[in-house]
């Protein structure tokens, strides 16, 4: 029997780490790296929770999960209850338990973080979500009264899925339009199997579908039909198409054959399962010596994927230093453990190729850090005459993504970077059309997209409850 420990005992305990696949083994497979908590680990960690009344952890969670609530249910050994408690506000718990940067969210605001040992909230959430999946625990969804209002959602990534799930639970008729042949957006094409197994995403999406959400794949809003077409058929629209377009550095040689955008490289491997070529038809190059440019999570994902595909040497080339890198500490740590070489303070200036278009090297310059720039990070400055050539035969640009211009609509303004301008209610400049996730805020994280999806769902509910309708407004304007 598990019990609530006296406060003193709780404070005494240290964080329980999670077992992981050993680096030397995992670089040869695509299986998940962290192996999950045992039930004993689960209880041990859950018992550390102080159950504070102020629940500052919840303030740090964009998905608004009742963290002390579900942890209390764990201690009561009511795993089903804990799962339902999480699902009340978060429809993607197994995903969040794995890819949320908890260290800058709930675990940062956790009271125990003052002592440097916050509750491992993500690991607990992951255990509960995995338990529910393995035991096929489903939410009771009967008795939701239909509101007879149609909502169109553009994109089936974390923002779209969350908004859809929240609205379906309220009785709205929700249809998600997805450009690719499978739903999941960046969760599916962007995050590798070893960080987020596909079967987990598929399960959570199936659960969202069970709540009544319809997902139409193979439908590129902006081409198959426009947002304005949808506006004539739906009472409201939520644009959550992400910041899908790849950024390139704009240096010579970037269109050589073996220069990939991280998007292409990861989409081939993750969505198309090219890592299982030729069993799957989509090819991918492994490269012998690979340079991955950038310092974010996608950079780490690309580098670690390269290694698993069989590259002999993988470099991460970043113009700033480790301290400024936007990747999660855990991801940099994982990459280092796996033998990825970090070339900090290094800026590529030219990719060298031969006549056939093969990459034969990459010219870089050394950098030093100057005064802080507008991002608050110290500005990298090239050191004169420090040029040198890295011996590589494949390059992956993982310097970020930007807005894809194919989704646009009349009267919806975009800012100079191509992101939709939204007010504090996530409404665009056109009433009835909302936007969230990366296409409204710029490239960010899964959890912030989930937060936007939740907020948009609330505002869409308010909009529709007030009797407004995009479709009706369209019909009116035609009459005028």
């Amino acid at each position, binding site marked *: 029997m598990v019990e609530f420990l006296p406060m003193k005992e709780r404070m005494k305990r240290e964080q329980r780490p999670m077992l992981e696949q050993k680096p030397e083994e995992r670089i040869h497979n695509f299986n998940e790296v962290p192996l999950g908590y045992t039930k004993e680990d689960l209880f041990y960690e859950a018992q550390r929770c102080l159950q504070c009344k102020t629940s500052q952890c919840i303030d740090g969670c964009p998905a608004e999960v009742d963290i002390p609530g579900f942890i209390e249910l764990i201690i009561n050994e009511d795993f089903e209850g804990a799962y339902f408690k999480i699902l009340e506000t978060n429809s993607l718990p197994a995903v969040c338990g794995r890819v949320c940067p908890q260290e800058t969210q709930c675990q940062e605001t956790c009271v125990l973080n003052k002592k440097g040992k916050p509750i491992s909230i993500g690991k607990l959430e992951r255990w509960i979500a995995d338990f529910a999946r393995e035991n096929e625990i489903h939410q009771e969804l009967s008795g939701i009264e239909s509101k007879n209002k149609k909502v169109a959602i553009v994109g089936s990534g974390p923002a779209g899925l969350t908004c859809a799930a929240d609205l379906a639970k309220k009785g709205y008729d929700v249809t998600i339009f997805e*450009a*690719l*042949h499978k739903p999941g957006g960046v969760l599916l*094409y962007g995050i590798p199997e070893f960080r987020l197994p596909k079967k987990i995403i598929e399960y959570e999406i199936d659960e969202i579908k069970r709540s009544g959400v319809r997902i139409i*794949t*193979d*439908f*590129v809003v*902006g*081409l*198959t*039909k426009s947002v304005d077409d949808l506006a004539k058929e739906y009472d409201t629209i939520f644009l959550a198409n992400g910041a*899908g*377009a*790849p950024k*390139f550095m704009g240096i010579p040689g*970037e*269109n*050589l*054959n*073996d220069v990939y*955008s991280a*998007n*292409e490289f990861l*989409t*081939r491997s993750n969505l*198309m*399962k090219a890592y299982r*070529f*030729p*069993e*799957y*038809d*989509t*090819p*991918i*190059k492994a490269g012998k010596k690979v340079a991955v440019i950038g310092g974010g999570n996608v950079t780490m994902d690309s580098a670690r994927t390269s290694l698993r595909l069989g590259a002999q040497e993988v470099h991460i080339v970043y113009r700033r230093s480790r301290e400024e890198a936007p990747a999660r500490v855990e991801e940099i740590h994982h990459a280092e453990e796996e033998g990825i070489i970090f070339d900090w303070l290094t800026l590529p200036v030219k990719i060298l190729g031969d006549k*056939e*278009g093969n990459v034969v090297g990459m010219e870089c310059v050394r950098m030093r850090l100057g005064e802080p720039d507008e991002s608050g990070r110290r500005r990298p400055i090239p050191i004169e005459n420090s040029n040198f050539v890295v011996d590589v035969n494949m390059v992956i640009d993982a310097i970020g993504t930007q807005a*894809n*211009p*194919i989704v646009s609509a009349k009267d919806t303004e975009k800012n100079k970077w191509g992101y939709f301008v939204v007010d504090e209610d996530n409404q665009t400049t056109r009433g009835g059309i909302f936007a969230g996730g990366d296409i409204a805020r710029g490239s960010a994280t899964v959890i912030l997209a989930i937060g936007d999806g939740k907020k948009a769902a609330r505002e869409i509910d308010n909009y529709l409850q007030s009797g407004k309708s995009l479709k009706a407004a369209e019909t009116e304007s035609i009459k005028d």
Partner: protein
Amino acid sequence: MYKIVGKKVYHEGLYGIWVEAKVVAKSARPGQFVMLMTDERGERFPLTIADYDRENLIYLVFMVVGKSTAKLSKMGEGDELFSLVGPLGNPSEIDNYGKVVCVGGGTGIASMYPIARELKRAGNEVISIIGARTKDLLFMEDKIRRDSSRVIITTDDGSYGRKGFVTEALKEVLENEGDVKRVWAIGPAIMMKNVALVTKPYGVKTDVSLNSIMVDASGMCGACRVTIGGETKFTCVDGPEFDGHLVDWDEFMNRLNRYKEQEKLAMDLYEGE
């Protein structure tokens, strides 16, 4: 979902299929393409829309060049494609220019057909030049004759029409008729490159349709990037048609070979099965 309802065998390795794809059939315009997958383990690959009935069906023509097209060629009436999405890319710039030439080579003939037809409908005098290696690989001739003002046929071996390449016929047209306003060329990369070389001295704007390797085809992956007049563009969302005089052809043709080894391996294994 995307059921094949009709199949035409033009020649061994050259096929046409009518596929159910309602939203695409309703909105497709000349020059646009679809991405498709034969099965769950398949590749996503592009095919230009060769025709549409505006109700429910689209027509696609393909030549077996690798595993994906080989798999597609094994599918027949009643079979369903795993995925099909479109219409993708920008439509051709159809307008009344006066006199235009449409050059189609190989399977490019199919992609050229709806462009020629709509240009004719828009009031142009359309001279279609279609070519293939040999007579048996020519197709859609009747449709092209019906919807063009004039047709010139070439075969490399002289088995039908004029002996020689489409570029030679095109040069004569440009030479003899001073008032060609615009040229479209769709076919193998080398043909399009040569057409652009032929038209350049005459200063006639030449649209070519690039068949880059693509993955998502909605502007997300950048696999299809090409250099046009010194600027990087994505074939899927900025094209597929570009000014042939501005294309960096060497780079484009190099990039078509990115997966040559893997494509060969996949095909060999597939044929071995």
